[in-house]
């Protein structure tokens, strides 16, 4: 009986332990200024309303083809993603795995597959939306070049305009 009580108490104690609510991660993030072309790719490939264009997603993508930030804006207004939506998308992407992202950025974008975002897009980790692109193609280069601090805008534009 005593063992049972101790076990229950322990279980409750573990269940109620939380992280320090004011804890913050500081690290290096990719460049915000060169993010819009990357965001447009993410809006196109990830941000449809039935995928990451939804408020219940950890990776939440706002943009002209899907979820809109302003209540007065409507989806499917190609090319009209707002600056505020880019800000939200940036915050969402850099907030997913901040420590790993910081390490990837600090190493000049080396081994970007350390990030779940990259693994899922490449399909090397289970992803409900399947494999979105292949390692080294224009879409992949768009995101990984941004992580490396030298965003290839031409790749991003090509990748966004291309059909799947």
């Amino acid at each position, binding site marked *: 009986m005593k063992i049972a009580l101790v076990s229950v108490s322990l279980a409750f104690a573990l269940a109620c332990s939380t992280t320090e609510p004011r804890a913050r991660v500081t690290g290096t993030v990719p460049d915000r200024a060169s993010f819009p072309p990357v965001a447009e790719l993410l809006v196109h490939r990830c941000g449809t*309303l039935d995928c990451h264009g939804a408020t219940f997603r950890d990776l939440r993508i706002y943009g002209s083809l899907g979820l809109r930030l302003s209540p007065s804006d409507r989806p499917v207004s190609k090319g009209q993603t707002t600056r505020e939506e880019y800000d939200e998308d940036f915050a969402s992407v850099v907030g997913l795995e901040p420590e790993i992202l910081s390490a990837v950025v600090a190493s000049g974008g080396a081994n970007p597959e350390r990030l779940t975002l990259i693994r899922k897009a490449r399909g090397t980790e289970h992803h409900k939306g399947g494999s979105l692109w292949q390692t080294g193609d224009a879409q992949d280069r768009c995101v990984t070049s941004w992580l490396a601090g030298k965003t290839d805008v031409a790749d991003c534009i090509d990748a966004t305009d291309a059909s799947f």
Partner: protein
Amino acid sequence: MRLRNLAFVCATALMCDPVNGAAIAALGDEAPGVPRGPLHRPGQPCVLCHDGSVGNPPEFTVAGTVFVNANDLTPAVDAGVMLTDSLGVSFPATTNEVGNFYVLPHQFQPTYPMKVAVTYANVTVSMTADVGRDGSCARCHLDPAASASPGHVYVPADGGTP
């Protein structure tokens, strides 16, 4: 006996997805005088129920409703719905008298993402965005139009974006 009990518990657990259950309940009852079948629940997210789960109605891989106008629910009868998946495989569906169409698994199982084009009254409109993973048109195309929904599917007479 134990095996039978275990099987019952497993089957019950599979049928009781609380998220789906709440979403289905929110759709409300059947419209009076409309029996379950191809003509029921136009404009609702079909695959929510028709998902092939235990105890559910026939599975649909893709299904939805096409309307004529943005501002009312006049059905687009005999509209053509062309579905093309990421492997380039296409499947043509046609809407019935209430604007509904549905696709069965043996007919077409898309590899997402998927493109959709709708033709009605000699006007063809292609969706600007791709379908990412959900076979129900109304999963995204809900009324009223809002920041998270373009509103119900319709075919603008001028061929603009639906």
